[in-house]
């Protein structure tokens, strides 16, 4: 313990970690409030909110998956060229010659699937816990936007491997956009950068997938978490305790 104390009680350590981990309430509050990574979170939460049945940790899981996706995505960008036919060849290179390339790609892919699932279940949880009610209406709307952004991220990533599945998936999807009244054809043109699913479409989807949509999502998540805090912390299961559950008529 002396060694530990010597390590933590010097100027260098204190300049980084100001508060130590002493278990007083004040210290805990300071620890959270003065840390950029933790400050979005409430400084103080009810024990009840931490129980698994309150949230099933679905929001946290979504956030973690997004972090995994960001990291693996950035690494995939090192090996990927958004051009035809290089894009598909790059998939093959990941499979055959990049060290752990298959692992990297599969991490990204499965994390993406899991994130859609987690976000969706998160929404269901909020819905069934009536957590969309005032004062949380706005955050519900932000959450809906985040779900849409998640789906769009998945969809734009779908084209990038440039295989048959990708090509036809995007062909069908953008033709659905075209069916939109009045603006449909123009919107499809904008999305594809032309009238066919070609190199321009690949480039646009790449930029959307790697820049615009992730930035929007990060922004949205920041607002979302901030509002969770400002709206009075997470809304658990409508205040009903398990003991009272049987008493509902």
């Amino acid at each position, binding site marked *: 313990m002396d060694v530990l104390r010597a390590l933590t009680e010097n100027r260098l350590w204190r300049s980084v970690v100001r508060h130590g981990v002493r278990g007083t309430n004040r210290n805990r509050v300071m620890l959270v409030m003065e840390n950029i990574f933790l400050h979005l979170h409430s400084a103080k939460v009810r024990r009840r909110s931490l129980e698994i049945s309150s949230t099933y940790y679905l929001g946290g899981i979504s956030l973690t998956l997004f972090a995994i996706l960001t990291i693996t995505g950035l690494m995939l960008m090192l090996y990927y060229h958004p051009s035809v036919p290089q894009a598909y060849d790059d998939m093959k290179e990941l*499979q*055959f010659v990049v060290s752990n390339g298959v692992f990297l790609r599969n991490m990204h892919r499965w994390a993406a699937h899991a994130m859609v699932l987690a976000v969706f279940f998160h929404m269901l949880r909020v819905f069934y816990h009536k957590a969309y009610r005032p004062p949380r209406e706005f955050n519900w709307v932000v959450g809906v936007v985040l779900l849409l952004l998640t789906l769009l991220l998945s969809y734009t990533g779908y084209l990038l491997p440039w295989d048959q599945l990708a090509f036809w998936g995007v062909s069908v999807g953008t033709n659905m956009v075209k069916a939109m009244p009045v603006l449909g054809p123009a919107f499809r043109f904008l999305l594809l950068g032309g009238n066919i699913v070609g190199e321009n479409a690949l480039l646009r989807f790449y930029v959307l997938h790697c820049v615009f949509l992730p930035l929007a999502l990060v922004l949205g998540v920041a607002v979302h978490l901030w509002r969770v805090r400002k709206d009075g912390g997470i809304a658990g299961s409508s205040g009903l305790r398990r003991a009272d559950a049987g008493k509902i008529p």
Partner: protein
Amino acid sequence: MEPPEPSSDRLWFWFAISSLACLAALAVSPVKDYFQEYRGYQDRFRELMFHRAGSLQEVRRARAQAAGIRQIWIPDFGGRVDRCITCHLGVEDPKMADAQQPFRLHPRTPHTPADFQRFGCVICHGGQGRATGRDEAHGLVPDWDAPVLPVRYTEAACGRCHEADAVPEASLLSAGRALMSRVGCYGCHKVAGHEDWRSEAPDLSGLGQKTSPAWLRAWLKSPRDLRPGTWMPDFRLTDDEIDVLVQFLWAQPPTASQDLGPEEDPPRGDQGRGKVLFSESRCISCHTVEGRGNGSAPELSGIGSKVNRRWLAAYLGNPHAFEPATRMPRYRFSRRDVLDLTEYLMEEFTDPSAPAAGPPLRPAQRSFQDGEATYKKYGCAGCHRIAGRSDPVQTGPDLTGIGEKPASLLDFGRRDDLPRRLPEWLAAKVSQPRSFRDGLKMPDFGFTEADVGALVTALLSLPREEVPERLRDPAPRPRYAPPGRFGVLVSEYRCLSCHQVGGAGEDISTAPLEAEGSRVRRDWLKRYLLLPITLRPVLAERMIPLRMPEAEAAFMADFMDNVYRDNGIPDEIFPAGPPADQVERGRKLFFERYGCQACHMVGGKGGYYGPLLDGAGERLRSGWIFWWLRGPQRWRADVREPDYGLDETDARDLAAYVGSIPAPKPAAGRAASGDPSRSAGSPRAGRGVP
């Protein structure tokens, strides 16, 4: 760091467990990465190198052999990357000639080992070049369309760059492409590069005056039963379809030129003289009789039971009036010759099993219309023409890219017995075209197994992906046509049915005409055109006596003497005749040093493998003999005369001797001298023919 809550002990425990599990899971990928399949092969190969090392240097090299992926990168071929050599490590190592695969030395081909870096592997063998695992690389995974080509069809790959029909050193591919052209695949199927293909199938206008309805019925029922070896496929027509087709064909009028002449019943000729004419005219240089003969023209046995006597007489008089596209030359037969030949053919070549002529056909309008529909349905016009009609051609599917069609897009129908692979599908399709489901129209060609192999090779060579321009070897396109009056005569006598000139023409004769004027003397050529003599006794196909008028022979000889010259071949090297001492030395070289008499006959003695040399000086220019001896394969790559690597003196002396070999006396039966203009029917040309 005291635990703040009593329940935290359990939490810490599970945290540790799950962290370790996570770490273990993460370790799986690097471990798998390290133990990749190819590393095992590379270890085995290194061991093999040690075993076979013959020197310390080679041992060192084996030791220095680093593990890792090896590849051939072809930036100007769509950035192809072939990693086959990651496991096939011995392809360039002569020590691995008998090693087990994947380490064996690549067999020698015109492109190996020189072009490994230029082409890579996949362009010839198929498969997935980028892959580094065995099944993935060989394309045996569901997501790869082009699995490795079975070795027996490897020649198909030659055809991806070499677009000509004949590809040297790819005999199977060449045979397959020749067969495709011969049996008329292009009549029904579109194939890039063969848009101007023309069938040799007979013109069907005026069919009614050529044969009988009964014969036609039997023919349509089963062509191969009537004439084994015919190229006409069996369409498996029903009796009803045959009836209406006969109705339709019988109603097609003859063209203006297909005139049978005024005589209703031509007079009978002399069968014996017809027989002499038949052998003298060397009909079997092209036709077969009971399967014997060159086979570039139809089988003649049974012709007497097939055609109408009056039609045959008119046809022999001028084949081009009846079949404008035929390869048959127009012999200048006299009327008597024609009648005698007709008599011989009609009486000698009968087929007792052929159907009797039967009653004339009674026309019926409804049947005509049904017949027309049947004619169109089976795409008959793909091969046959009827004057004045333009029926749909190429009614079958486009074959462009069939060689790379993914097996998943093929209709296997009820053929559950076939493996789901392209080569097997193609083989089944060409050998049993209608076995896949009902209602298919492709006819049965009765291909042999060898034919099927060749055809599948040729079909697999039709690629979807274009090879880069630098690798393409396009088929010779601009077809040479001899000009002017000479051209008219060449067409009349169909010289190009046997001879080649300027890339045009068939290769039945051994003598292309490009440098004929530099090769033979004009006077000899004229005599030869008037009455060909046997030059190469070993060959069954000989120059045919066309009975051309002397003026035409003189004109053709003059034209070739002046135009078909190769300026690289010296004209005369002995303007004043060969000096006697050189002749004598040449004679010794001929008989003693090089033993030329083993193949060449001089004065009736010697071998008959090469051309007869009696009177060679009258035939050949001395400059040609000299040039020829210095390297016969410069003339054509397949010349059988060995290249002895003669120096200039030896070649000159030999040329002096060969040029002075005297012609035999006319009494010996040779026609090298004497007046060649003669009455038709002289049997002299037939003599001395084995």
